[in-house]
C-alpha cells in the first residue's frame, strides 16, 4: 500500500508543476460553464412543462462539472503510460516487485487529483460570487455535501478503472486513439457531461442508468444539488462499489493475461 501511496505522491509533485496548463484550463472551463448555463437559461425560459430539474440545480450541476472536469472526464489521458507501452520503457516497470495494475491505478488517480486540485478551487469560489442566474448554490444539507464528497471519490475510482481498460487495450492495438475515441465519446454522453441525465428522454435515461459512466459525474453532482436525496445516494454508492469491483477485477484479469504474452522489443 505504501508503494502505491508513494507513486501517488510523486505523481502529485510532478503534476503540480504544470501551473500554466491549469490556468488555461480554468479559463476554458469558465467559458464552457457560462455557455452551458446560457443555453439552459434560454430553454428554461421557454419550457412548456416543468423540467425535472430546477434551473438552480442545473447551474450548480454545470459548475461542478466544470470544476471537476479533470476528475471525471474519460478523455483525460496519461501520455506517460501510453509511451511506456509503445516505446518499451515498460521493461523497467516490469522489473519492479509490485503489481502493475495497482501501480498504474495509483498514478492515474494522482494525475486526476492533482489536475483537479489546481483547477477546482478558483472555479468553485468564483462561481459562488457570480450574479444570478449564474451563481452556484450551497448543498441543501451538510449530509448531502458529505455524501457528495464520498460519491465523487468513488466516482473517480470508477472512472480510473474504466480508463485502465483503455490503457490495457493499448498493449494489443499499440495506439490509444481508437479505444479512447469510442469509450470517451460514449462515456462523456452517458455520464451526463453534455446533457444532465434527468433532462434526457426517458428511454435514453434507462440506457444511461444501466451503464457505469454516470456514477462518476451525474450521480455525485445530483447528490450535491439535493436532486438525489441522501437515502437514494446510499443506494447509488452501493452501485458504485459493485461496478468498481467488477471493473477492477476484469482489468486485473486482462492485465495478467496480457503480461504473459508481452514482447518488449529492441535493445
Amino acid at each position, binding site marked *: 500500500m*505504501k*508503494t502505491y*501511496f*508513494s*507513486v501517488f505522491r*510523486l505523481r502529485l*509533485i*510532478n503534476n503540480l*508543476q504544470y501551473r500554466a496548463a491549469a490556468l488555461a484550463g480554468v479559463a476554458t472551463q469558465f467559458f464552457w460553464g457560462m455557455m452551458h448555463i446560457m443555453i439552459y437559461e434560454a430553454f428554461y425560459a421557454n419550457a412548456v412543462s416543468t423540467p425535472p430539474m430546477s434551473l438552480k440545480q442545473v447551474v450548480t450541476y454545470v459548475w461542478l462539472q466544470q470544476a471537476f472536469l479533470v476528475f471525471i472526464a474519460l478523455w483525460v489521458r496519461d501520455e506517460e503510460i501510453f509511451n511506456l507501452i509503445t*516505446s*518499451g*520503457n515498460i*521493461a*523497467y516497470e*516490469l*522489473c*519492479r*516487485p*509490485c*503489481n502493475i495494475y495497482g501501480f498504474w491505478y495509483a498514478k492515474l488517480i494522482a494525475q486526476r487529483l492533482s489536475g483537479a486540485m489546481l483547477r477546482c478551487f478558483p472555479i468553485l469560489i468564483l462561481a459562488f460570487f457570480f450574479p444570478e442566474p449564474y451563481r452556484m448554490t450551497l448543498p441543501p444539507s451538510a449530509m448531502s455535501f458529505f455524501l457528495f464528497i464520498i460519491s465523487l471519490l468513488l466516482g473517480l475510482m470508477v472512472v480510473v478503472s474504466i480508463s485502465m481498460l483503455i490503457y490495457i487495450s493499448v498493449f494489443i492495438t499499440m495506439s490509444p486513439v481508437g479505444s479512447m475515441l469510442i469509450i470517451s465519446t460514449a462515456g462523456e454522453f452517458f455520464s451526463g457531461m453534455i446533457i444532465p441525465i434527468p433532462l434526457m428522454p426517458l428511454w435514453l435515461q434507462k440506457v444511461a442508468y444501466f451503464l457505469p459512466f454516470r456514477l462518476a459525474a451525474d450521480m455525485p453532482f445530483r447528490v450535491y444539488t439535493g436532486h438525489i436525496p441522501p437515502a437514494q445516494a446510499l443506494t447509488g454508492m452501493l452501485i458504485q462499489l459493485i461496478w468498481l469491483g467488477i471493473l477492477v477485477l476484469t482489468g486485473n484479469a486482462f492485465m495478467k493475461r496480457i503480461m*504473459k*504474452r*508481452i*514482447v*518488449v522489443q*529492441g*535493445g
Partner: protein
Amino acid sequence: MSQIQVKGLYKTFKVAKRSAGLKEAAKSLFHRKYEIVEALKDVTFSIDAGEIVGYIGPNGAGKSTTIKIMSGILVPDRGECRIMGRIPWKDRVSHVREIGVVFGQRTQLWWDVPVIDSYELLRDIYRISHKDYSKNLDLLVNTLELQDIINTPVRQLSLGQRMRCELAASLLHSPKILFLDEPTIGLDAASKIAVRQFIKTINRERNITVILTTHDMNDIEALTDRILLIGRGQILYDGNLEDLKSRFSDNKIITANFRGYDSIIDNQTIHSLGATVVSCSRGRLTLKVDTRICRVADIIARLSGVVDLADISVESPPIDELILKLYKEYAI
C-alpha cells in the same frame, strides 16, 4: 549449485512482413504474412555468484532477449532458467527484488522531478528500510559522485550524469545480481571509465554478480574475466578473454621511440629485425610481430642493438579486430 542456470532456452518472435507498395499494404489488411524469427536456439550456460560476465554478439544476436528472460520480462518458448532457485517469469515479484537492471537505452528515472524523488519512490517500491536506504544512498552518492546532481531534474542531466544516476537507482535495494544492457552506450571517455570503475568496485566489495552486454570491447577488456559470445541465437564461445586472445591474436604491436638515429632506418636493417613495419618515421617505429615466428623479446633485443631506445611499448592488436575475427570465424 550456480547462482544462474540457463538450460536449453528457446524463444521465437513473430514478425509481420510485407513488401513495399500500396497493393501489398491493401492485401495485408486482410491477410497478414508473418515470419518466425528464432531469437534464441538452445542457449545454455551457468554463472556463479560474484562473476562478471560479458555477454557479447552483433546486433540482433539475442543478447537483450536473454537478459529480458533472465529479468523476468519475457517468457521463453521452451527451456529452463533458474536464478537463485527461482524461475524469473513465474516468480516475478520475488525474483525482481533480488536483481538490479539497467537498460542503457531507456530510463527508469522520472523525467521532470529531481533524481532524489525517483530514488525515494524506489525506496518505497522495494520497501527498503530507512536505515538501509540512507546507508546505500550515501555509499552510492559518494562512489558515483552524485552530490551535485541528485537534486537536479533528470531532464537537465547530461547522458553521463544520467547513467551514473541510473546505476545508483538499480542498486538501492542491494540486489545480488546486476544486469547491465549496454551501460556505456553513448558515453564519453571519462564517463565510461567512471562507470567501469564503479562496476568493478561494487562487484568486489559487495560480491554482486554482474552480467553485462556491450558493443564496446574496452568495457569487456576492463571488466570481465569471462565472456559469452552469442550469434544467431546460439552460444558460440564461453570462456575467458585471455584464451580467446591467444587463440585469435598471434600478433603483437611494438612501438619504439628512439634517439641518436637521425635518419630513417633503412630497409635492410628493418628486414633483419624479422618483423613487418606498420609505420616508420623519424625517431619512431611501429612493428607488427607474428609471435608464431619469433618472440617479442628477440625483436626488442635486436632493435636495441641498432638504435638508442628511449621508450618502447608492446600491445595486443585492438580487441575490436579480435572480435571481428571471431564473428567471421563463426560466420555471424
